[in-house]
Structures are given as structure tokens and as C-alpha cells.
């Protein structure tokens, strides 16, 4: 069991919601999904590789028969899965500091959610509703979300210069190469093992 693989941490959380409230949350997510500027804070938290919220209605837990008992639940449930870089404490601290309004908007419909500020009580709540990952795989464990974004910028710039390289004289190439270096210089950070949080 490990919530960590390389530079990525897998978080799982499940919180109960009264069924009538899930429709409010669905509406919020619908608006969030269709009004891209509302995602800016999430994008600015650039240590999140993938995250998802799944509302499971109380009657929609998979039922396959074959001796399985059908669930009989009073609550709908909100499942949250996140893949982020850094430690659990760094993540929750940053979420609370940067996205407190957004977090409250999403989780205030869950039972007993205390609010994302102050962070100590928020962390106690997350600890209660979190469950651990049994198996965690990533195709690029040495890279953070920012490493991946930077790598694609370097790749794109290199592709552009490669096309021009064979068709210009050395002086023209030198100018193009200088522009290329300026484009990529902030995106060449070394990937590798993550520092150990103290």
C-alpha cells in the first residue's frame, strides 16, 4: 500500500451528501466545466496532474446480481480522486490558502464539512474522510505536472527549430537558435527524485 509513486501523491476521499443537495453540486460542476475562467485557481495550483469528482447517487452503486446484495443507502456520496505533487500537508495547506472559496462551494453540501478555513479543522475532516491507495502507478514518476508542461514546450520549440535548421545559413541559424534558447530556458529544470520533506 502506498499513496505515493515518485513525485505524485494519490488522494481518495468520500463524503456523504443528502440527495437533494447533490443537484446543487452537479449544477456547480456543470458551470465550472463550461466557464473556463472559473478553473483558473485550479490551473494556478500547478501541482495537480489530474483530479476528479464523482457524485454517486445512493441507488447507483454498481449492482451485478450474482449474489451481491443491493445497497440501501440514505446518502449520495461524493468521491474525490486527486493526483498531486508534494506532500499531503503542502497540498491541503495550499488548497486551503488559495482555493478556500472553491473548496467550500464544492464540499459545503457534504455532511459535517467544517469549511476549508481554518486549515487545522479542515485537515482533521480530510483525514477522517480519506482512504488509502492500495496500488498506484504513473507512467512518468520522476516528473511533476510543471515538468510535463515544460517538457511539451521544449518539444514544441525544438520541433520548430528542427524544421528551420536545415534550410538556413549558419548566421540565420544562430539567430533562430538564440530565440529557441530564450523560449526554453525557463523550462529546462532537471527531473529526478523529489526532495524529502522535512
Amino acid at each position: 500500500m502506498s499513496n505515493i509513486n515518485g513525485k505524485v501523491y494519490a488522494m481518495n476521499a468520500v463524503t456523504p451528501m443528502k440527495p437533494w443537495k447533490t443537484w446543487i453540486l452537479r449544477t456547480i460542476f456543470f458551470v465550472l466545466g463550461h466557464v473556463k475562467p472559473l478553473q483558473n485557481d485550479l490551473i494556478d495550483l500547478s501541482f495537480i496532474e489530474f483530479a476528479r469528482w464523482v457524485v454517486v447517487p445512493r441507488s447507483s452503486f454498481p449492482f451485478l446480481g450474482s449474489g451481491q446484495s443491493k445497497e440501501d443507502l440514505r446518502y449520495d456520496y461524493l468521491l474525490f480522486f486527486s493526483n498531486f505533487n508534494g506532500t499531503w500537508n503542502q497540498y491541503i495547506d495550499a488548497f486551503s490558502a488559495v482555493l478556500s472559496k472553491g473548496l467550500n462551494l464544492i464540499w459545503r453540501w457534504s455532511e459535517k464539512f467544517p469549511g476549508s478555513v481554518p486549515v487545522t479543522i479542515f485537515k482533521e475532516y480530510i483525514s477522517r474522510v480519506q482512504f488509502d491507495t492500495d496500488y498506484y502507478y504513473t507512467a512518468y514518476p520522476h516528473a511533476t505536472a510543471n515538468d510535463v508542461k515544460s517538457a511539451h514546450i521544449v518539444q514544441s520549440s525544438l520541433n520548430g527549430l528542427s524544421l528551420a535548421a536545415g534550410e538556413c545559413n549558419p548566421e540565420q541559424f544562430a539567430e533562430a537558435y538564440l530565440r529557441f534558447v530564450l523560449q526554453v530556458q525557463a523550462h529546462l529544470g532537471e527531473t529526478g527524485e523529489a526532495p524529502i520533506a522535512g
Partner: protein
Amino acid sequence: MPNRNGSVYGLTILSPIIDDKKATPSHDLQIRNYLAHLSTREESPFAQAPGTHLARLVVMDDVIYVGMPAHEEHLKSKYLIFESNCDGDLDTYLSGLAAAIPDHLNAVWKHCVGYPGAANRQAFIDYMKACQLETTFFFAAVNDKTVTETLRALQTQTAVADFIATHQGVDVATLQREFIEFVVHLKSQPLPRPGSMGPHREIKTGGRNE
């Protein structure tokens, strides 16, 4: 569609685990035991099958009771959660899994209710879809690149940093010639294997401060 963000698909599957009082150890423990011994690096089943950026398998024992005045309730089944962030459309991805790693799939999902096995491709896909949950909101930091493109880009990033560092002050004719050679050489390099290049670090607990 909320399951998709750009070209990345967010797959969420909840498979009910067989509840057999006579099974020793119980089926959920057998899943956990199998997963505990599975490589998470380039030998991982997900590295052998195409198209997985990140994936996790989690045994969900029960829902969480948050205390009064909330109502305390419990699940009647334990569930195996399979959460994957993958390339392409769902049928292609599931077919790729069934073709590449049928033994691993069978070893894990044989403990789940109604699992038909990976040999019958269509039955496998139908089963997974029957257990699938629709994502309500899916965020992807990079949503337009495949696993292959990302591995290639990370390889390029390292190589470009080295090239720039070693070609400072080189005359322009040499720079151009060696750059062209560098690009040809880079393209000829084998792609890093998915799951590779990670640090060899023993993590025993997955503790929250690691």
C-alpha cells in the same frame, strides 16, 4: 462529456468484491495481497498495456461516517475502485488492457462479482462498463498529449538541456551542424519505458508527511 477532458479519458470503475464468508483470506484481502506484490515501475502491468498516464486501485471497505447528527450507514459490499487517466476512447483502452495484461486483470478481478475474465474481450468490456461511474468533473493539467508524447517530451527536455549546456560559445557553423546531428540522434533514441526513470525509493507507509 465529463469523463473526458481534451484527449484524456477519466475512467472510474467500482467493482463489487465477492462477499464469501467461507473464503480465507477474504476476497478483499486477496486483492490487497496481490496488489502489494505488484511492481509500480516499468514492470507494472499498466506500463505493459498502452495508454495509462496514472492509475490506482483501491479497496473501499465502506463509506465514512462523519459523526452526529449525520446518519450512520454502511455498504453491503466492498468495492474495488479502478481509477485511470488514459488516452483514447474507452473501448480501445479496455481492449488494450485485456490484450496486454489478461493474467493480471484476472488475478485481481476474479475476486469481484460477475467478472467474466479477460479472454472474452467484449464480455470484459461490457463488465467494466457495467461497473463504470460517470465522472462529474474532471480536471487534467495537460489534456492534449498521449503517454508516448509525454515520455518523448521529457526525454527531449533532458537532452536539450545537455545540448545547450555543452554548446555555449561554439562557432555558428559547428553549432548548426551539431544541432542537426543532435536532432537526428534524439529521434533515433528508444522511447523511455512507461513507469521507468523513477527514483528507487522504498516507501513503507505512504504516510501523509512523506
